[in-house]
């Protein structure tokens, strides 16, 4: 057991299990606590300049990471022409800087506005700190170890795939520079924090809104047949 194994075999599996079990438990047994906990009512102007850049920046970058993991071949084909590689990298960096600007705004707002401080939990600050670290290391990777979309498909993709096929190959990560290892392992820290913090609102993105009927009507009785029409469920309880 060395650091490499601990950080890239044991920790990922512990984090994934925690994230799934914790989130499922919270969604089913503690649904009231699941909320994006918007504070727009208390302060709106700074929120606009923070929330909008941060969320859109981070959502697009996360999606790009996901595409690279699921469809590495597609990224490789795209990057075959140098100008397209530059375009991808520059876009990614710009989005990251945009997200960093928004995140900075959100952190400033959270510590400087007294009404926002009143609704801040310690875990909110932990999440903001983690995000700041993750965005900054991501930007460092993009600038110091350039063209991650090019070499990443050969290093990270096989590693993540090895995790999912239960044949982990942490040796793929071992030779990488510190910042890269840090950036990767911080993701698993996010997984650990995920079910216990407001991060959980990420999985509640209401895509169903695009298709559901506008009006929702619920019936106390019509949805559940009366006992004369079916086997009473309470009968066997005592």
């Amino acid at each position, binding site marked *: 057991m060395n650091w490499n194994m601990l950080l890239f075999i044991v920790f990922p599996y512990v984090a994934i299990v925690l994230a799934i079990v914790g989130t499922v438990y919270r969604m089913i047994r503690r*649904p*009231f606590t699941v*909320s994006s906990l918007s504070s727009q009512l208390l302060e709106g102007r700074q929120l606009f300049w923070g929330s909008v850049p941060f969320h859109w920046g981070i959502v697009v970058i996360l999606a790009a990471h996901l595409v690279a993991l699921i469809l590495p071949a597609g990224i490789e084909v795209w990057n075959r022409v140098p100008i397209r590689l530059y375009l991808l990298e520059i876009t990614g960096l710009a989005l990251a800087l945009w997200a960093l600007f928004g995140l900075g705004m959100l952190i400033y707002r959270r510590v400087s506005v007294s009404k926002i401080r009143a609704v801040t*939990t310690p875990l909110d600050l932990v999440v903001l700190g983690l995000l700041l670290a993750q965005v900054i290391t991501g930007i460092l990777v993009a600038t110091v170890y350039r063209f991650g979309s090019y070499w990443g498909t050969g290093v990270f993709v096989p590693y993540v795939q090895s995790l999912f096929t239960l044949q982990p190959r942490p040796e793929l990560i071992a030779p990488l520079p510190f910042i890269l290892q840090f950036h990767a392992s911080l993701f698993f820290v996010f997984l650990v924090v995920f079910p216990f913090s407001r991060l959980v609102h990420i999985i509640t993105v209401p895509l169903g809104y695009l298709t559901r009927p506008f*009006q929702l009507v619920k019936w106390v009785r019509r949805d559940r047949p009366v006992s004369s029409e079916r086997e*009473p469920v309470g009968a066997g309880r005592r």
Partner: protein
Amino acid sequence: MDVRAHMSMIFHLDKCIGCHTCSVACKNLWTDRKGAEYMWWNNVETRPGSGYPTGWEDQDHYRGGWKKGWVGVELKLHSRPRGLANLFYNPALPDLQDYYEPFTFRYEDLFTAPEGDDQPTAIPISAITGEPMNIESGPNWDDDLSGSAIYAANDPNWKDVPSEVQAQMAEIERVVFNYLPRICNHCLNPACVAACPSGAIYKRGEDGVVLVNEDKCRAWRMCVSACPYKKVYYNWSTGKSEKCILCFPRMEIGQAPACAHSCVGRIRYMGVLLYDADAIRWGAEGDEKDLIDRQLDVILDPFDPDVIAAAKQSGLDDGWIDTAQKSPAYKFVKEWGLALPLHAEYRTMAMMFYVPPLSPVVSTIEEGLIRLDLPPEQVDFELFDNLEKARLPIKYLANLFAGGNEALIRGILRKMLAVRIYKRRQSVEGEIDEATMNMVWSAGTSPEEIEAIYKLTTVPTIADRFVFPPYHREMAAESMYGDPLARKGDTGLGYSVPPERGA
């Protein structure tokens, strides 16, 4: 025809004295909690005035309600994809300052202040941060301030009222106002339900109450913006939306909602209205001038045999149909045609109805016309024919309750005036002369109807005012748990999980 029942409230504004007892009863029962201090599920506004939250009727600003679209109606707030795109920041959300920042006072200073020459004072502090604050507004900050340049002048209902009339209304001896109590309208076509990305808000099929399922609410706060009446509130502490629940736990055991039950002026009535759920779409889509007519058509006649048969088909039991026939709401809204929804032009089909106030109109004319040589009964008749001389412009009331249609308001006021004059003649003179009878007919009413209106308006008992159907909660429990006795003691008030802010 899909017949459903709706619990509807009538507000007889002529009787409202603006005492705010309803607001306080509601506050004590439901919103006396952290995060809900600023919420008034029931509030009473002075009109003309800008209301609570300030300027809530300005839909160019708040984008509440519906508009006519390419097909049917669309939310003013957003299209569905736009709604998702605005999750990170909702551009039409009111700021807390549009309500007011909740405050309390540092009372302990009164006890802990060092001895000195001055009396210690309890300074105001914010209920959110606990820090000292300047109170700039609060609950009912505009109370009785009709005529003020801040509140009354910014009332959106001055639309189409000539500016010289508005200027006159601000003169101190011409100031006139009435009160407008407001709760959630539990609309037939609720915009809050349609705007909720999570699908957390729903309308109960049995009685039409619109509720927020806070377990599903994710604080996207679109309901707050989409409700044109601004009657969904965001709890800043728990991160969940909250709204008037029409005191459904009270209604289910046959008690009136707290606001209605505590009403000092006895202005509130409550009863069942039957409506055709299949016609809601049609009702919301009409041209602006047809909206009220269409909404009244969606509400069905509980004495019609076809309606009764269809109601039974839809699962309504005899108890509900019977109470629908005795409903004071049906009488005011359909039989007598005295009550109107607030701002039908929002197309949400509000199901709380208002009888427009006659008193401020009458005092107007009496102020303006009383001469020593003119006996009171002549004043009455003069007013009956000259409602446009009223001190509170009819146009103003029409903008509130009739989408600007003055004829509708004039018809209602004439009928109410006919009741007054008829009953005054009857009790003071002891006889009804021909001129009075002519006035009664021209108001489109009859002595029988006048007696009925008089009785329900002036001397109703609590059983006349509140006619509740048998909810049969025991049967609902049975259908949920099989044998209700098997789960006796398992359910009731309290929480399985305390409603506290999540991390």
